[in-house]
């Protein structure tokens, strides 16, 4: 057995699962609010910084340095980013679907792009361009099979992702709130008529996106460290995934994420390592050209 290829496949699946966390938030926000959140990568970055602030002891609260165990820091970081997401929805994105405005899509894209620059450069100005290392979740490398070893942090990230993806799918398909979310995504006016508070659904969607992006940022922080533009490449992978899976399709996003992870890791084995990040863009452009509704998306009907 060629352990090198096996390692690449496993790595691809692990990355795919993390990408799925990022893409799930994007796709939920898109399906509910029809907004592509260009600042989603900075939500991811904030997750990493939140974990660092809570666990590394660099931040003091009432002159006590915060050194929480990382396993406690993770949910706190997720909640922090979720609260930030709710604030963004309340402060910036609400006019998109309440007020009458010219071309709301353009407004949302420019606004979230501006917010992304704001957060990135805000981080650069306040904490500087340095790479920061939060504590590890599961130290050392783990023996899998034969000659195959994997970093404990990556395994922990993959396991937690599976748990979170499962929880999200259960939340959306198995609870009343989740069904209300799907109803809002299908027909906003109709769901208002049957008594769904659509504004609350927007808040739920942004909070869910914040939770998942914060989790992805915090889970990968010990692996890739934290710095201001850490979210730029992952968020573009997220865009590729939601387009590939079909904009707004939740199951499609999970499948597309694993496909993209595998394409990247196997592509870098068989073609070129340097072009690793380019594959995603080629997939994006190819899908938009030949199958704009993605794998599981529904063909848009316009009136």
């Amino acid at each position, binding site marked *: 057995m060629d352990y090198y290829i096996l390692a690449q496949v496993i790595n691809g699946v692990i990355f795919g699962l993390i990408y799925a966390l990022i893409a799930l938030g994007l796709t939920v926000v*898109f399906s509910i609010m029809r*907004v*592509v959140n*260009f600042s989603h990568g900075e939500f991811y970055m904030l997750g990493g910084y939140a974990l660092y602030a809570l666990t590394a002891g660099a931040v003091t609260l009432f002159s006590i340095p915060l050194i929480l165990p990382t396993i406690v820091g993770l949910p706190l970081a997720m909640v922090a980013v979720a609260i930030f997401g709710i604030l963004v929805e309340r402060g*910036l994105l609400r*006019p998109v679907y309440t007020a009458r405005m*010219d*071309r709301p*899509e*353009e*407004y949302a*894209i*420019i*606004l979230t*792009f*501006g*917010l992304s*620059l*704001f957060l*990135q*450069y*805000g981080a*650069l*100005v306040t904490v500087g361009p340095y790479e920061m290392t939060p504590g590890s979740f599961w130290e050392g490398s783990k023996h899998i099979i034969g000659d195959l070893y994997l970093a404990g942090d990556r395994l922990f990230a993959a396991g937690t992702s599976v748990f979170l993806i499962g929880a999200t799918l259960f939340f959306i398909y198995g609870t009343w709130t989740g069904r209300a979310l799907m109803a809002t995504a299908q027909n906003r006016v109709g769901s208002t008529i049957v008594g769904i508070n659509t504004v609350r659904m927007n808040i739920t969607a942004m909070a869910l996106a914040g939770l998942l992006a914060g989790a992805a940022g915090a889970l990968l922080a010990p692996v890739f460290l934290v710095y201001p533009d850490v979210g*730029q490449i992952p968020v*573009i992978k997220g*865009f*590729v995934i939601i*387009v590939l899976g079909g*904009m707004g399709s939740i199951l499609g996003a999970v499948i597309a994420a694993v496909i993209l992870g595998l394409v990247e890791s196997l592509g870098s084995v068989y073609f070129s390592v*340097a*072009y690793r*990040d*380019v594959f*995603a*863009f*080629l997939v*994006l*452009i190819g899908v*938009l*050209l030949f199958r*704009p509704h993605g794998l599981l998306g529904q063909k848009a009907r*316009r009136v």
Partner: protein
Amino acid sequence: MTRFEKTTCVLALAGGLAIPLLLYDQPYLIRVAASVLYFIILASSWNLLLGYAGQLSFAHAAFAGIGAYTSGLLSAGFLGDNFCTSLVENGLGVVSDLLCGENYSRDFSYGVHPGISIFVGGAVAAGIGWCLGRMCLRTRGPYLALMTLGFSETVRLILQIEHEYTRGSLGLRIPYLWTTDDGLPNHAVGYLIMLALTVITIVVLYYLVNSEKGLFFKAIREDEDVAAVMGVDLVKWKVNAFVISSGFAGLAGAIYAHLFVQVLAPQMLLLLEMGLILAMTIVGGLGTLTGPIIGAILLVVLWEFMRDISPYAHMLLFATLVIIVMKFFRAGIFGLIARRLKAKNLISKAPPFTVE
């Protein structure tokens, strides 16, 4: 045009021409003034796409980069010794003299003369703009933004990865377009060339948006489907908007690179550059010709004042401005002024976005 508008144009042009005379002994400030002109061209041509044709593209900095790199690679001898010597061997010495000019610069003896390559750069950018425009015909709204973002990042990554040709992040050294006898660039002349290109851009855009074609663009912006029903050739005018704006961006990128940027790096294609162009257009006023000019001047001046504080503080301020302008007055600074001027009948048209 009203008399007020004509006077303002003449005064602005006179001001632009006076800058190299006033700042003759301060080359740094002339460089800053030239960068204002560069951003005016980029923001104005991007404004044609978003402000007039309603196509939100994130690939504009990439087109400037494509123009600059095409021209830079040609003039820095990318064609290589083989190409030029084979021309001479095949009895095409005249073509070789033209394309592979000798001794005009220190060590770029086998490159195309920058005076020719800048136009090739602009043409290549326009050609790739045509392709991207064709590819984006079916995509709109967020899909178009994602597609152009993907395109822009792909170009940047390829330029960075193919370092055997482009020298990647090390930077590609390219010859000057215009040097004095001692081989150093003359910033005042460079500034005037940039000014000429800026004036050409603005004049072309003025006649374009005030003609029937401008109406086609605006119709597409307001509602594509209705425009198509009314007989606007969507394919033609959407692609044209891409070709014109990316051609100007490529030309501006190439000329600016040969005049002021001696070393090209893929960083000029970063989304940060796109953020600058976007901030200038939005803050100045989307959908007007004056807006991007005001925005570019204001933001570059602010940038210069903020250099002392922190190397990143300017972008933080610009992002804040973009958010504030989008949230509270989408017509931008010029939109605020224009309403007052229109009330006094000083200008002929009010900006398209209502100020609420």
